[in-house]
């Protein structure tokens, strides 16, 4: 009720921000975010930082604490050079998936920008981090700070003990396989037989249980039984080492014949951080869309209630419009589809389908077209989808027309590129599918798995790259990565390319 009384008076007037004003603005934003939109957020910790600290955060993949490595220095030097020469601006904020949710705001922002940024990061992103299933299942928001601190100290201690060069060698190699250091589909494998045996031995008195377990696993592993007949050794190895294994770093950590325990721990750190960041890579459109939708809704509400001045509102809108701009494919500024633009447009579109559905919408989205609770529909989308499935599920013909999307097929066999779909009735479904695929990391990133390693034989590590659509690996980099891999494995490493047999 108080808010209604105060509504006549703007929260702030003028460009300068102070902590008192930000506190006031934050409370007003929170009111709308929680009461109106029904968001559910981690407690916020908003930190004000300078441009140099922003550059720092940039170079460390946006994490507040990071171990030391030359590549971060390189990125810092590059970003700094770009920033100092004015070729690249800095982000207004960085937000970290943690509990409490830390967001960094730049000190150069005006009060209007600080308000916009708080709505965007401290509530939009924050809600997404807390509620999206990928983040819930795969990341530990409460523990990440402790883990980062552990990682930093551990690696510093290793440097002291084994020398910075030795540590650098392991880190270089591990970084080269970062994208192959995540579990994409399932949890880390259950303990192998070997590990189970070790665990059993620790728990004395369970020896009888162990034999029961053996019988159970042997009798239930029907698939392996078939292979048993063909190649008993191979099948035993597969079982023992959980092959095929998509997480190469995990495999090396567990089975490399040459790595010392501390080196394994470093691989583990790198893959844990890669896994922590993996959900963010899968939800760029949704994450930014959610944050942009939330800030847009909130600033409009604030303006309606008279809590921000027209000048501040115009400044925010100006910035908002820049962020959601989508240049067309033949525009010199075009550099792919802007996740802010696509995400924001899709979420606004969902709201429209709920509020003012057309016949077409009712046909395409019978589940929620005309649903009066558009907030609930959006919250459900934010919680249960990632970019690929979100697009596949929610991209409407209306938006395809608005963006004038078309599919261009680039087949190396053909002399020219072919326009295979355009925004018409015949093309909607195909375009939606093609666009969704464009955000499918499993499709974008090469599918490389460890398929065999005979530790008693030649000890060669065999990797298989499953080639889809005839797209091979970049050869120069492939050689470099394999060199790193050989260092970690200690013996020869072979990478075979195999054409995918089934059409995905």
């Amino acid at each position, binding site marked *: 009720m108080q808010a209604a009384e105060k509504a006549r008076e703007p929260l702030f007037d003028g460009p300068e921000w102070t902590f008192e004003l930000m506190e006031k603005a934050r409370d007003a934003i929170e009111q709308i975010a929680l009461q109106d939109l029904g968001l559910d957020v981690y407690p916020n910790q908003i930190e004000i930082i300078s441009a140099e600290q922003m550059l720092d955060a940039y170079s460390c993949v946006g994490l507040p604490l990071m171990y030391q490595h030359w590549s971060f220095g390189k990125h810092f030097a590059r970003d700094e050079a770009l920033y100092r020469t004015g070729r690249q601006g800095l982000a207004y904020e960085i937000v970290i998936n943690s509990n409490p949710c830390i967001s960094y705001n730049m000190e150069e922002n005006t009060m209007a920008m600080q308000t916009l940024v708080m709505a965007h990061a401290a509530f939009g992103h924050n809600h997404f981090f807390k509620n999206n299933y990928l983040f819930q299942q795969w990341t530990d928001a409460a523990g990440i700070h402790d883990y980062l601190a552990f990682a930093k100290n551990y690696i510093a201690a290793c440097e002291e003990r084994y020398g910075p060069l030795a540590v650098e060698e392991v880190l270089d190699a591990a970084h080269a396989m970062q*994208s192959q250091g995540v579990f994409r589909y399932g949890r880390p494998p259950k303990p192998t037989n070997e590990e189970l045996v070790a665990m059993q031995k620790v728990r004395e008195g369970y020896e009888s249980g162990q034999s029961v377990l053996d019988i159970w696993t042997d009798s239930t592993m029907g698939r392996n039984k078939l292979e048993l007949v063909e190649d008993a050794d191979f099948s035993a190895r597969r079982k023992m080492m959980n092959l095929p294994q998509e997480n190469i770093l995990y495999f090396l950590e567990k089975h490399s014949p040459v790595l010392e325990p501390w080196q394994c721990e470093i691989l583990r750190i790198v893959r844990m951080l890669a896994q922590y960041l993996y959900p963010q890579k899968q939800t760029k459109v949704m994450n930014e869309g959610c944050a942009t939708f939330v800030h847009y809704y909130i600033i409009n509400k604030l303006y309606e209630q008279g809590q921000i001045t027209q000048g501040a509102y115009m400044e925010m809108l100006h910035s908002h419009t820049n962020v959601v701009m989508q240049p067309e494919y033949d525009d010199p500024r075009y550099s792919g589809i802007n996740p802010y633009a696509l995400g924001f447009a899709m979420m606004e579109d969902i709201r429209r389908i709920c509020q003012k559905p057309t016949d077409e919408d009712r046909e395409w989205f019978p589940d929620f077209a005309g649903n009066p609770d558009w907030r609930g529909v959006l919250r459900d989308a934010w919680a249960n989808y990632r970019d690929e499935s979100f697009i596949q599920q929610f991209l409407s013909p209306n938006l395809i027309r608005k963006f004038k999307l078309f599919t261009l097929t680039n087949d190396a066999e053909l002399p020219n590129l072919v326009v295979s779909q355009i925004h018409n009735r015949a093309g909607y479904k195909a375009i939606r599918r093609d666009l969704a695929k464009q955000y499918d990391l499993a499709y974008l990133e090469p599918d490389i798995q460890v398929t065999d390693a005979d530790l008693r034989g030649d000890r060669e590590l065999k990797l298989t790259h499953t080639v889809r659509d005839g797209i091979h690996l970049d050869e120069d980099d492939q050689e470099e990565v394999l060199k790193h891999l050989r260092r970690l494995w200690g013996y020869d490493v072979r990478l075979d390319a195999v054409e995918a047999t089934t059409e995905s």
Partner: protein
Amino acid sequence: MHHFIDRRANPKGKSLGNRQRFLRRARENIKERVDQSVRGKSIQSGSGVPDEGEKVTIPTRGLKEPRFFHSSKGGMRRHVLPGNKDFVVGDTIKRPQGSAGQGGRQASEDGDGEDEFSFTLTQEEYLEILFEGLELPDLVEKATVETETIGTRRAGLTTAGTPNNLNLVRTMRNSLGRRIALQRPTTKSQRELEEQIAELEALDERTPPQADFLEALKKRLEGIIRKRKVVGYIDPLDLRYDTFVPEKIRNSRAVVFCLMDVSGSMQEREKDLAKRFFLLLHLFLERCYEHTELVFVRHTHHAQEVDEETFFYARETGGTIVSTALEKMKEIIEERYPPDEWNIYGAQASDGENFGNDSVRCKNLLLNDLLPVSQFYAYVEIVDEAAEMLLNNPEAGEDLWQNYREVKAQAQHFEMQRVSQPGHIYPIFREFFLPKVKGMQHAGS
């Protein structure tokens, strides 16, 4: 629950460690570029390296972060693009040449497709790389001069000392700890008790329980006062004193004598080359000594000490008598720079001309007076770019060159070289100061 934190005052340079690792990694490449930049660049008067640092561009090889990613060529792929204007299904578009089409490298973490990498080195980093591997000459045979003064240095805490060295913070910390441990009653508790007693005593009539209570309070007060006396506020045990130990502080000082022929035959080009050499020498020595001074001596047929501006830019006419400059240097050393306090460096630039038999005099002056007190003496002869014969043959040369060759044969810390282009200066300079422990086979590596 939420809060704001102001991080702006946090210590800067959080990524300094990363930067050092990066520089070490890219050392070879950076060094190559720094050498090039110092060769080609026209060195301005003064520091030579801008305070804000030096921009270098290095090739990315060795700095690549390889990843497994899809090649941008071949195969079958579909791209969804926005902004269709008049395409219909089945339209064909020419494959763009050169560029690999959109979306080719989505998987790479950072789009470092570029072959070059530019960033800025700080002045400190720049100089360090510039002079990497160089050493002060002749350290083996003649130690550098260091003056010693006696200073004091803090050396921890002691339990005994003079009152002016009392460390209040430590003393009070000990005192507080002891008071807590021994449960010394506080002043406040004593005062409270006293107030209570006063209150009771102020009553005219006291009931028996009150009288008993007063009695008990008085006893307690007595106890407290006794305990406060026994457990003092500050005990001699608490006292801590700062201690200082005398220490020898070494000061190393160097003076660089820049000697140049400014007679008519030395034109802009010659002066510019000489200047580059002096500047490098100064920058280098500045990093080796805590304090360096420059002395400029120019000469025609007579020598005078001048300031830097006059040295490089003023014109003078006259004949050429080199020995006058050496005389002047000797004079200045005797007057102002006693060799047991100063490290003396000489650098002489000339076009090689000298009057009559003055060169012999120069030789003797150097051998008898100057070289014995100097750490190092370098002679740079600036010759015409066309004079290839001279550049390639160290034995050919005029009178002065020949005499200096004799000097070189006798004194190890004397070096001489010929230059004709700016590009020569830096390699020659490096040659002068490369460590020469194992003879010359390491030079130029």
